[in-house]
């Protein structure tokens, strides 16, 4: 039983880490203003999509 748990941790651990890392890499836009403030528009937000589409076209 202990071996099975260790094996599960050994396999599931890296998978979880990779999944979390991948989720952290989602498309987003950071806007910086002259007063030092910053706004992040996450992927899926209506305001982010037009900006992400322009950037995607620029990178293609």
């Amino acid at each position, binding site marked *: 039983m202990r071996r099975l748990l260790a094996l599960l941790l050994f396999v599931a651990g890296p998978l979880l880490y990779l999944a979390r890392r991948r989720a952290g890499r989602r498309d987003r*836009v950071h*806007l*910086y*203003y002259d*007063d030092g403030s910053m706004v992040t528009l996450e992927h899926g937000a209506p305001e982010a999509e037009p*900006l*992400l589409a322009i*950037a995607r076209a*620029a*990178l293609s």
Partner: protein
Amino acid sequence: MDAAGALSDLTEISSQVEAAVVLDAAGAVVASTLDDAERTARLARAALELLDAADKRGQTGGRALTQLEAALREGSVFVARRDGRSIVATTSAEPTSGLVFYDLKACLRSLPETPAKPKRRRTTKARADA
């Protein structure tokens, strides 16, 4: 230093920058690291569209946008502007954003001042009695 020299320094200093284009206040291309005119035009257009879209965004509260990063899985697009001029750059995925912005702003600062408009010469009417 001219704009081409500033971009050359930028690509030498920043290993993360893959391509960069400098635009003047009117949005015209001043210099580019790309040999391909079409890609240069596409990147310049993207910069103007990104700035325009970000400026039109609501909830800015009267603040002026100075720089932006669009981060995608395939890479990032950075735009910074100063004194009317802008610089746009592309990088690979997950760049060190702070460093890229620092290098872009240093590049903008190193550009020569835009030449001032020549002053109109004041003309004086010749006096009839002179």
